[in-house]
Structure formats: C-alpha cells, structure tokens
C-alpha cells in the first residue's frame, strides 16, 4: 500500500517538474525532450492506476508519434535547430489566473472522500467490449474526424496557395 503511494508521489513530482521545465526552457529542442519525459511519466501513472492499455497507447501515440511530429515541426521551421527563443515577459495576469484555478480546485477537494479508493485490476476484454459494442459509434466518429483532419492538413500545406 505504502509503496504505491510513494510511487504515485514520485510520478506526480516528475510530471509537474517536467511540464514546467518544458515550458520554461529557452531551447525548443530541450522542450521536446522534457515533454517526451512527461508523456512517458504519465504512461507510468496509467500502469499504476491499472489501465495498461491506456499506458501502452500513451507511449505509442504521445511519446512516439506526437513527440516526433513536434520535433519535425521544430526542424522545419528553424534555420538553426538549436537557436534560442526570444524571451517573453510574464505579466501578473496569467500567474494570478493559474493561482485562482489552483485555489478553486483546492477548495473543491474538501468534498472528496478522504480515505483511499481501492483500484482493482480488470480484464482487458471488458475494455474492448466497451469500446466496440456500447461506444462503437465513438470509434467510428473518431475515424471520420481523423480522415477530415487529414484532408484539412493537406489543404493547409498544399502548394500553390498565396
């Protein structure tokens, strides 16, 4: 029991630190490395929460595909890949807003059950039944959205536009 609590704490600290470093570092390539670590860390959390299918999906889609896509974007849009970002000032507004969000969430957390909630392992067959039987239209809709996104992306980058 205590081992899982410690593992969760470690994963949570790594997730917050890597997310912050990804946004605060000045080199875009370092940002990509930190965000890849963040995605791998979250997939470890999914495994800890007994959701192994989502963990594997997170590794494949986020740590694999999205990271490579972002790296590709950085490579294409920069003359020198290790050039630094111009510094952007951080006004008081965003910090106040983020602080207010955290306060709001902290106030709401008192309503939650205070004792631990037990997480059981499940049969992966159940997830596939949920995905393909009851929520079958959702996967079909996802496929349609992906197809139209593909068409839209090709339209955006095609040759001959002003």
């Amino acid at each position, binding site marked *: 029991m205590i081992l899982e609590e410690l593992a969760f704490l470690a994963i949570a600290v790594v997730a917050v630190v890597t997310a912050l470093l990804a946004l605060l570092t000045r080199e875009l390539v370092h940002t990509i490395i930190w965000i890849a670590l963040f995605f791998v860390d979250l997939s470890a959390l999914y495994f800890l929460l007994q959701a192994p299918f989502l963990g594997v999906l997170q590794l494949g*889609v*986020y740590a694999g595909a999205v990271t490579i896509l*972002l790296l590709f974007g950085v490579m294409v*849009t920069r003359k020198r890949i290790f050039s630094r970002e111009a510094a952007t000032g951080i006004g008081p507004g965003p910090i106040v807003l983020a602080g207010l969000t*955290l306060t709001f969430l902290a106030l709401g957390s008192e309503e*939650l059950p205070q004792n631990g909630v037990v997480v059981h392992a499940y049969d992966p067959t159940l997830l596939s039944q*949920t995905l393909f039987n009851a929520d079958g239209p959702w996967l079909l809709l996802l496929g349609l959205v992906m197809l139209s996104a593909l068409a839209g992306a090709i339209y955006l980058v095609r040759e001959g536009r002003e």
Partner: protein
Amino acid sequence: MSAFSPAGLLALSGALLSIGLFGILTRRNFILLLISIEIAINAAVLNFVYFAAFAGATGGLTGQAIAVVVIGLAATEVAVGLAIVLALNRLRGSINVAEAATLKF
C-alpha cells in the same frame, strides 16, 4: 490491487491543467502553444482514468473508453496544428503567433 487518495490524484491533474493554462497564456511560439494544449488535455485524460479506476470494472470502463477517444483526438489536433505551423511559416517566415494578426481588428 492498490489504494489511492482521490485528493492527491485530482491535485496532480489540477496542477497540470494550471501549467498548461499558464503556457497557453504566456508563450508566443506556436509549437510551445501546442505543447501547452497537450499538457492541459493530458490533465483531462488523467481525470477520466481516475474516475474509471474509482468506479472499478463493475462500474463500467466508459472512462477508459473516453480516454482512448480523447488521446486519438489530441493526436489529430497536433497533426492539424503542425500543418498550420507549416503554412504560417511559409506565409510569414515566423511562427510567432503575435505576428499572425491579419484577422485581428
């Protein structure tokens, strides 16, 4: 089988959502903006996974099914976002969102 306190789990996703919001509001680079949005979406997916775990296998795995759909949608969004980045780079020679102000009045 293991036990987790809901407050700690939700505090993590709240913190990640705040970080993503902070990035969306302060960064001017389009790719950093996309990364901030990804962090915020991951915070939301985490919530779905928590509540699916709390409900247990008997309570249905709808939360995990929704998480699968959201992960797919987020990957699609990155692909379209990078197409916009490429178009912006070709049109303006820069991916600073503050310079893409043609539609601003």
